[in-house]
Structures are given as C-alpha cells and as structure tokens.
C-alpha cells in the first residue's frame, strides 16, 4: 500500500509546478507560420489598407489559415477567403492547394504578370510559374522562390527571404 501511495504521489507531484511552452508543430501549423512570414517580406505595388488572402483548391491548411484574418502585416489587414479558381481577381495573395493540372495551369496563366503573390505546397510549383513553393526536407520545412516570376508580377521580395530560400530561380 505504501508503494501505491508513493506512486500516486509521484504522479500527482508532476501535476503541479510551473509551465513552459514548447513548440512542436504539426506540418499544417508550420506551413501556416511560414505563409504568414512570407506576407511580411513581400511588398505590393498598390497602396491600400487591406490584403486579400485567398485559398484556392483543396488543402488541409484551410482550417488553419483563418487565424490570419484580422492580423496585419506592413499596415495592411489580412482578409482570408476561400475562393473558386475562376474568381481570383481581387486577391493579392493566393495559397493554391490541390487543383486539377489543367485548372492550375489556367489559373497561373491568368495571374501571370499581375501583382499577386502565389504560394503553394504542391510539387514543381515554382517551375510552373508560381512564386513561392513550400516543401519538406526530412522533418523540416523549406521553400523555393521563383524570383523571375515575382519581378514580372511587380512584387518586391526582401533579400532576407531570398537568402533563406533553399532555391531561387
């Protein structure tokens, strides 16, 4: 009995005490944090007080990206909406999830040269003309930047972001 009491005490003793936070993100959480940072390092040619952030295609991030809504980056308030790939004319930044290849091609074509930051975690996204591509390297998240496409779009990407990118094309 004494040992049981000791054991229970041990378990309970653990319940008290101070707390520390430790970051142990899921892949989705980490992606969202990256996307949020990207928005900070890009400047748009247009003035305005809002930044319309659109989510297109299927992605588990849709559940998380809402946390941006109402937050501001460089004096712009972010507004998150899930939109149809055909209806992206008001977007300034777009996260592209899974789309049918044809749909994606069409969308990137429409956006070409427009001041829209395109971000995706789909493979070969930068090669296809997208601006930022997230990918996993082992357990760590990395990103590629298509600098040519960003310049064409008239977006300014900070050198810090370019420096941290795994690949710049």
């Amino acid at each position, binding site marked *: 009995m004494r*040992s*049981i009491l*000791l*054991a*229970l005490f*041990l*378990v309970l003793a*653990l*319940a008290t*005490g101070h*707390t*520390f*936070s*430790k*970051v*142990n*993100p*899921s*892949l*989705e*959480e*980490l992606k*969202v*944090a*990256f996307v*949020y*940072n990207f928005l900070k*390092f890009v400047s748009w040619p247009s003035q305005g007080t809002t930044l319309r952030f659109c989510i297109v*295609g*299927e992605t*588990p991030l*849709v*559940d*998380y990206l*809402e*946390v941006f809504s109402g*937050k501001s980056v460089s004096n712009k308030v972010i507004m998150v909406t899930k939109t149809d790939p055909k209806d992206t004319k008001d977007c300034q930044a777009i996260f592209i*999830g*899974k*789309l049918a290849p044809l749909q994606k091609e069409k969308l990137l074509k429409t956006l070409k040269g427009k001041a829209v930051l395109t971000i995706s975690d*789909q*493979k070969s996204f930068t090669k296809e003309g997208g601006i930022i591509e997230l990918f*996993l*390297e*082992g*357990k*760590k*998240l*990395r990103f590629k930047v298509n600098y040519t496409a960003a310049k064409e779009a008239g977006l300014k990407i900070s050198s*810090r*972001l370019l420096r*941290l990118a795994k690949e710049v094309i």
Partner: protein
Amino acid sequence: MNILIGLILLAIVTFPAFATGREINPELLRMELEELLNLEVTSAAKHPQKLSEVAAAVFVISEESLRHSFTDFIPELLRDVPGVHVARTTASDWAISIRGFNDRFANKLLVLMDGRSLYTPLFSGVHWERQDAIIEDLDRIEVIRGPGGSLWGANAVNGIINIITKSAWDTQGFFANLKVGNEESLAALRYGGHGENVAYRVYLKAREVDSSAEIHNGQAHDDWRMLQGGFRFDWKLSPERNLRFSGDAYTQTAGVVQSYYIPIPPYEIFFADDGYGFGANFLLKLEEKKASGHSWCLQAYYDTSSATGYPLLNWDLDVYDIEFQQVIPKKNLIWTWGLGYRLYDTYVKKSVYANFSPYAFVPAKTKSYILNAFGQAEIDLTSSLKLILGSKFEYHEETGLNFQPTGRFLWKVDENKTIWGAISRAVRTPSRGELDAVINIYIPRLEGSPYPLFLELHGNDDLDPETLLALELGYRQSLNARFQYDVTVFFNVYDDLITVPLPEKPPVFHPKPWPHLHTYAKAQNSMDGETYGFELSAFYRPTSPLFFQLSYSYLKMFLHAPQKTIWFGEDQEDVWPRHIFSLRSCYEIGKKLHLDARVRYVSKVPLYDIPSYWATDIKLSWKANENLSLSFIGQNIFDPRHPEFGQYYALRTPLREVERSFFLKITWQK
C-alpha cells in the same frame, strides 16, 4: 495494405474536414523565419485524422506517447491501451489479448506491421518476441477493439493491433542509441538519406535480455539475444503516387524450457535448450491518393520465418500475400472495396525429444491459401448521421467460405459529442495446430481418480471456424480542447469455440511402468460463451507540457460446454483479470527535462492463481543539446518481482516472474 485500409477508413470519416477553424500555437506566428526553418514537424501525415469520428473503439499510441514510453519492446507498449491485457510470461514471451481469452497463443486478435500480418497460422497467435523495430522509427500504434472483420479479415475477432512505422522521409539523418540496465541492454543505429524524389533508411538493432526469475528457484533459463536489420525506400513517383519498398531480417537465440511428459514420476520434466529464430520479409506497396478522395493501393509481401533447436517442435513458415483495394467517394457515399490472396507454406518438424512422445503435426508439410474480397459503403444519411454497411467474404482452403458483415452508425450529437454503435459478425479460422497437431498432455489428477492422466490430443481437420456476434456502443466527448474521454460497452456472443471435451470412453488404466490413465481426445467446436465489458479512456492536458492519460477496462467471461472440457475449456472464464487500470503522466519541465510516470493495476488471474499487482514506472530524460539526450528508466520500481501469467496450455514452460529493472539510455541524433 490493411493499414492503408485503416488510414483510408480514418481519412474517409474525416472527409468533409473543412469544418471550423483549427487552433494554431500563437508562438509560431511570432517566430522569425530563421527559427521556423529549424523546427521539426511532429508528423507529416497528410490527412488530419479525427479519431472522434470513427465508428469503432479506437485507441492510438501516438508518436508523442511513444517518445514518453518506458520500454523498447513493442508488446510492452500496449500496456496503456484500454481493453488489452499484456502479461509477460517469460523474458522472451508475452501473452496478449483484447477483450478476453488471453494466452501465449491468444488467437482472437489480428496484429499487423505496416500491412503485413504477424499472426502465425501455425499456432494462431503472435510471436511477440520476434516483432521488433527501433521504437523511435515507429509512427504510431493503432488499436481497434472489437471485430474489424468486414475490412480486416479473419481472426480480427476481438481486435486489431496495427503497428505503423514512419516513412523514410521522416527518419532522415543519423540516429544511434544505447541502453544498458540490469534486465536488458540494446544498441540501435539508423541512417536516413534522400534524393529529390526518393528517401531511404537503413537500420540495425541488437538486444540482449536477461533471464526472468523462476518462482522458488532463482533465475530461469530464458535469457535471449537478437540482431535485426532492415531498410525502407519511399519514392514519390508523382505528387499523387508513392512507391514503397522495405524489408527486415532478424536472428535470435533464446533459452527455452519446455515440458515433456513421461508416465513415471515426476511425470513432467523440463527440457532446456537454446532455440534459434530467424525471419525476413520484403514488402512492396504502390499507392495513389487523389485530392478528390479517390485512392487505390496495391501491396505484395513475402515473409519467411523459422525456428530450430527448440526442445519439442520446430518450424518453417513462408507467407506470400498480394492485396488490392480502392476507395471511391461519391456524393454522400464512399465505397471501399478490395481483393486479396495469401498463401501459407508450412513445415513443422519434430525434435529429437519429441520422438519419445507424441508431439507432431500430421502432415508435417502443408500449403494452404486464403482468398478474400470485401466491400463497404459509408453513407451520409444526414449531415450528422452516418451509416456504414459492409462485409468481407473469405475463402479458406480448409474451412470454406465465411462471410463477416458489419453494420455501424455514427451520430455527431454536436461538435464535441459522438455516439456510435455497431453490430458485427467475425470468424476465427482454426490454426494448423488445431487441425493437424498431435500433442501429449499431462493432467496431474483427474477428478475422482487418484492417478495422473496422459492425454494424447489430436487436431481435427473437420473443425469449423469460431464465430462471434458483437454488439458495441460507444460515446466520446471533448469537454474542451484539454479534456477528452471515451467510453465503450460491448456484449460478445461466441459460438463454436474450439475446446477439447473429455472423451466419453473412460480412460484406460495402465499399471506399468507406473500407474496412470491414458486416453485420446480430439478438438471440437463444442463450446459457446458470452463476454461483456466496459472500457474507459481519458486524456487531460492542463497545460501544453503536461498530460495525463487514464485507461480502465472491466470484463466478464461466461463459457458453456455441454461436456466436461479438459483443454481450453470452461476454466478459461478465469483467465482474464476483471480490472485493468493505468494512469500515466508526461511532464516537460522546461525545454531540457522530461519526467514521465505511470502506475498501473491488474487484478488477479484466478485460473493460474496469479495475484493482483500494482506496478510503477518512471522515466527522467535530459536533453543535453540538440543531438544528445539521456534517460533514466525504472520499471516496477516498488516491487522486486511479480508473476503476470500462468503456465499456458500448449508448450508449457515453468512459471516466471517479472523483475524490477533500471536502465540508462543514451540517444544521439543528427
């Protein structure tokens, strides 16, 4: 592939997953990009898995839980799972079952590792000592209590244990650990690398386990050693298509003691010998998952294993398996169907000792196959009510066609409350042992007779499968993000249970060489029974670095046989501990120190006169730097030794006790 079915099952029930916003750790949004680049993701799972929406009693040992575990043995990891009784019988054997009927060869559960069945068709059970991996390379262990027959196939009667290893993409870099202690030591080494589209890992693990304690007698002859190595490749053929190729091989040497009966006192003598175990497997899996929810998977594996040098029986077993399955989502309906073929090639050999006594499989060599097909429809009746209907059809060469239907419902009362229920039929096919074995059994004294009885037990190839009709009802609730609990009640009705009735013909009296009785008996489908029980699990995380996990199970068994049974009979009612309880806590004291503790209780096992016991385990881990961590582990710290299970029926060994143990573990990774 069964794992894939499970994944898909989990994925499809979460299909309309775009519900409400999920929380994100606010600290992440405050971090600089440089810091984010250094973070590691906990899991690269593509589908968020909402366990709260599965219409079955599921418990998952998560990666976090694995990191905080007290052991490097896969069977020992199952001690916290509700509904599961884990008993260590010797240093190298475990008796593990779900919802009743425990034995070293517990035969009513299906165990899989990455889709490969670990269930042996020879004795129907699992050689737990042969199932190993680097624990840090395990992604999770899913345990489903209750029949999973309609998707998972025969022998998934009382439950399914699904051991899932990490993708090679998640085990990159160097990893090494060394564990030393009074009862066990091990060393493991792994390296993972990758190219643009392919990742791989190779590993090696060596283990040495000290003998357990023998009741009244000091140390037992059951110490063992093993060496295991393996590899895994994961190719991304396209964004939607993945190919996996993996393999493992092991070799073991174990001290084994098995009993042998002679018709003169002391009647039962024990032979000690060194048994050698060998095994290897290769698995190839091609899968495609589309964003639309369509998916398919094709898997093939080969598994070979053997035992030599054991006192009584030795064996070779080859398993060839190929399976295909597909998920087709439609509006308000998800179809899942599949096909599978498995071939068993077995050879059971008598040892030298067995020549003196009937102990053999007749015929020694057999080949048999299983064909199966299944289909399941998941129907959204309303936005909150789901109905699942399905059946598996399985054709066994020995027992013919069996069908295993299930009907389930899941009702989401609101965001935080779920009720589910199920009615299912499942079958267990007889093992080769039950069909073909000849075993000599000794019963010290038959009721009403002063003499010992020697029984020559013969398998029976006319046996039918055992059947189960199971009724289950479950309720889950999350009171808030920090506290969740899960309650399940079940009522199981078994029919055609395999037992050995006492033959009607009275045993023959032999005065020589020493007075004894002798008789023959045959296995029969002549027992039925019921079990009912209740299982609870609760999870409480008051702050993010601290969590508690509680599980409790209650079960009662009733067995009925028209005749007196002498082997695996009505006395099995008393093989299951009525109460099993476990409470564990995991606490991260700052970024460098972790303290884990667990208390658990198992009530008595009356059949073997095993008293109830409490056990306490602790673990203190210190992360010295990014690469190096140290842990101190104490198991059964308040108890020098205790027995957990009795001498089982087949291939008896002397009763053993589990001893107190302490370990130091060093882990290095880069």
